[in-house]
């Protein structure tokens, strides 16, 4: 028992959390006593005796877990081994429940953790749809309803979609570029362990007096600055999720820039690598803004600052500007990695090179640049400086161009293909193209100020974001999970169950979110627990389809769990794909490669006779030198 508490691990982490929280709590009480104040402050927004332990507790947990052990030893001058692999790799299931520096373990940890939050957030959506099945109040009070949709969105965005992409890329990306691990494995592990902290804060806020945060995931001031204690849990949860995100993005950037295998120049990187590089550029520059603005709200609440307190000269609209300066790039943070996954899946199952590979990569960069210039299209009706609307409208519509390039290039890839539909991942990829096109079209409409004035803050918005986030991002997540499941587990999932999951998800998704466009245009505002009776029938239909959608995800869960344990062995390369991760065993060895692979051609050389992307092993040394190759042209030069 004592030994377990001395060793880095979850037990010591729990002890650290307790000590950290107790330290924070005592500090607050003692300082307040010393100042002659009552020990506890229970004003609606204050609660320092809760907020401070909410910061010190998680830090104590991370210390106890062992996240800082190596750095502490190094800083204190104690002997350290630079190539310390003691916390690397998984040899039993227990190794997934500790501080682990292996990118493959971290990838699995990310994916499993985020899917737990996906099901929690999904259950909240089910409760909401049950409430909305009829006009009036039946199941939850309006205040609870506000908490539910706020927590649903926060959980899905901050601890599901954004990090699950980080998880998939964590697993796949180092393998794809021929690297033994990420550039900073200890930072990588720390990034992961900050994530469940954020998720637990979002979920745990339901235990607060006054309920969970209820100002929406957007947390607009001044509703959020005056909200009950739960709002502070949101403010702090975002800090941990954001720090996790930023650290991972830095890690990806350094890994991609410095650790590619010999011969892999930028024009030989698979598009998933391009996509994650673009995403990381967005995360690194944009995420500090939401961290900052949530701190400003927290300070307004706890420290009586006046960033957004109008009565004292604060400015409410600046909250929205800072918030959306992150949160619009965030929608691309939630989409670009999916674009990368779709490119991998489509070229593999169409047995064709990606059509217009270079333009595909440049389109990603174009989206990155443009996405910083469009944030105020979320504020067309906010009362902001009116002139700003027109330039923001033009940039918003222009961002459809690089997005369109991607759609058309995927269609070009399918043209003349040898199309295999045997994999569920390909079904999700094709459905993604249709659904995302529709989400993109409604996005263009929303970009037009006169149309946006009418449909802003209605169910049309709810429909649009679910078309791009469920029909877009989540479909690509499923495509990615199915695509790399054999690589991650060494086993094959059940395609029959995969098909059931796909078709029920597709039907459920369209039945749920398509009619939302119509009721929104006709006058149903979003974020309402109750609505006008004229929308009753449509909402009943939507609720029924949403239950189907929810039930379909249980098939996925069952399929994944059972196949991971009992699925048939998959082999190294079941899809006969060309990228490097398929050259190693499934699952890959602890350090990925016995020898560093050498890249000799583009990543998608399907149908080019004799073409190869990469070579493992010492033979054929004559093709090892990096070549200034055009994607595609290089392949024909290798034997």
């Amino acid at each position, binding site marked *: 028992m004592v030994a377990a508490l001395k060793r880095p691990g979850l037990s010591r982490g729990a002890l650290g959390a307790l000590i950290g929280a107790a330290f924070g709590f005592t500090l607050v009480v003692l300082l307040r006593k010393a100042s002659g104040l009552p020990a506890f402050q229970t004003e609606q927004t204050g609660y320092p005796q809760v907020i401070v332990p909410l910061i010190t507790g998680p830090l104590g947990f991370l210390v106890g877990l062992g996240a800082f052990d190596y750095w502490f030893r190094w800083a204190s001058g104690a002997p350290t081994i630079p190539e310390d692999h003691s916390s690397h790799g998984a040899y039993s299931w227990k190794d997934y429940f500790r501080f682990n520096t292996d990118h493959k373990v971290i990838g699995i940890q990310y994916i499993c953790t985020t899917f737990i939050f996906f099901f929690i957030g999904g259950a909240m959506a089910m409760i909401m749809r049950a409430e909305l099945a009829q006009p009036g109040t039946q199941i939850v009070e309006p205040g609870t309803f506000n908490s539910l949709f706020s927590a649903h969105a926060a959980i899905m965005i901050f601890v599901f979609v954004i990090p699950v992409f980080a998880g998939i890329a964590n697993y796949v990306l180092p393998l794809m570029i021929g690297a033994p691990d990420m550039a900073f494995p200890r930072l990588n592990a720390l990034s992961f362990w900050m994530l469940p902290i954020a998720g637990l804060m979002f979920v745990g806020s339901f235990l607060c007096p006054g309920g969970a945060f209820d100002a929406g995931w957007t947390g607009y001031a001044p509703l959020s600055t005056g909200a009950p204690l739960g709002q502070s849990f949101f403010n702090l949860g975002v800090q941990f999720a954001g720090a996790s995100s930023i650290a991972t993005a830095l890690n990806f950037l350094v890994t991609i820039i410095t650790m590619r295998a010999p011969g892999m120049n930028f024009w030989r990187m698979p598009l998933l690598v391009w996509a994650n590089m673009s995403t990381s550029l967005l995360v690194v520059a944009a995420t500090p803004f939401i961290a900052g603005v949530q701190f400003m709200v927290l300070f307004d609440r706890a420290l009586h600052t006046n960033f957004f307190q109008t009565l004292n000269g604060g400015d409410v609209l600046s909250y929205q500007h800072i918030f959306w300066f992150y949160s619009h790039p965030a929608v691309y943070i939630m989409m670009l990695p999916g674009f990368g996954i779709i490119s991998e899946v489509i070229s593999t199952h169409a047995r064709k090179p990606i059509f217009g590979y270079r333009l595909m990569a440049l389109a990603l960069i174009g989206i990155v640049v443009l996405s910083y210039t469009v944030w105020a299209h979320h504020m067309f009706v906010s009362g902001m400086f009116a002139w700003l609307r027109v330039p923001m409208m033009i940039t918003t519509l222009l961002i459809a161009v690089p997005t369109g390039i991607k759609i058309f290039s995927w269609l070009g890839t399918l043209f003349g*293909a040898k199309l295999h539909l045997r994999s569920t991942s390909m079904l999700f990829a094709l459905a993604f193209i249709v659904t995302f096109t529709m989400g993109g079209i409604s996005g263009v409409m929303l970009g037009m100020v006169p149309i946006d004035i009418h449909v802003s803050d209605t169910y049309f918005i709810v429909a649009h974001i679910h078309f791009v986030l469920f029909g877009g991002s989540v479909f690509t997540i499923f495509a990615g999970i199915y695509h790399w499941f054999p690589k991650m587990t060494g086993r094959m999932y059940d395609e029959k169950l995969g098909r059931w999951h796909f078709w029920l998800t597709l039907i459920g998704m369209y039945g749920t979110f398509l009619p939302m466009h119509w009721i929104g245009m006709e006058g149903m505002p979003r974020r309402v627990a109750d609505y006008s009776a004229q929308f009753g029938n449509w909402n009943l239909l939507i609720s029924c389809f949403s239950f189907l959608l929810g039930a379909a995800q249980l098939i996925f869960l069952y399929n994944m769990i059972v196949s991971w344990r009992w699925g048939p062995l998959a082999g190294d390369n079941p899809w006969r794909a060309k990228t490097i991760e398929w050259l190693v065993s499934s699952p890959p060895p602890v350090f990925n490669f016995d020898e560093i692979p050498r890249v000799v051609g583009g990543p998608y050389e399907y149908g080019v006779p004799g073409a190869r992307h990469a070579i493992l092993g010492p033979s054929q040394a004559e093709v090892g030198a990096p070549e200034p190759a055009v994607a595609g042209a290089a392949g024909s030069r290798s034997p």
Partner: protein
Amino acid sequence: MTRATLVRLIAAIIVLTVVTAVPMTMIHWNGTEASTQAHEIDTLLNVMIILSCFVFSIVIVMLGYCVWKYRVKPGDESDGEPIHGNTRLEIAWTVIPTVIVLFGAIYSWIVLGDIESQASDALHIDVTAQQYEWTFNYPQPDGKVVSSKTLVVPDNRQLSLHLTALDVLHSFWVPEWRIKRDLVPAGPGGNDVDNTVVVTPDKVGTYNVVCTELCGFGHSTMRALVRVVPTAQYESWLKRQPEVTPSPGSPNGSSTGTSSQESADGGTTTTTPSTTTPAAPGSSSDTTTGSS
């Protein structure tokens, strides 16, 4: 691809565009049009629906064709033709969408200018929102105001609505008017917020003001009645209303630019009974709406 296939595909795209666009432009998605602004916005929407149907048809037809034509027979493990790209095609699908969206942007810009053009004889009304009710003040020439919980307005005259919130953000939306704008709490000395929105109702009827910015647990029932009536009826209604002296910071007062330091006490929810209107005071409930 042969020329005949190309012609067939283009034909299929055009047919699908027509088949989807015709019914979609015939449906009144936005419901009743009850303002001059609504007509222009709905026309813009219909133009966009046609363009969207065209783009969507391209994607659907090409995707459907590829899945139908190129799906392999079981056992065929060969690779597709190694086509790496086509520069002319790639330029085309960069340039053409750019032209389309720029057309949409310019068209929207023109519509935006039209729907926000100010009339000289606009009727000034101060709209004040607070959790969870609306107050509409009609400034009178003598400096007093008529205060109402129902928005009663004349037909065919531009309204200039000056919007203020007393506590948190709210949003003013009458779906049949297609006009929406957030109400932002003002600080001392006002704030740099575009708080005036214009709309010209052109259809007599009863509608709802719907709050569309999350404002707390009562958000979903924060409604007010709107009655658009002929001008003569409006004038007589206005005469019947008692006038009150505006007091700063209260919803009954003029809400433009006056100091709102006093509104710190927030709860100015009471209005004198005399200001209630002939319309049902319980305007927050879902009563009849103008849309069908």
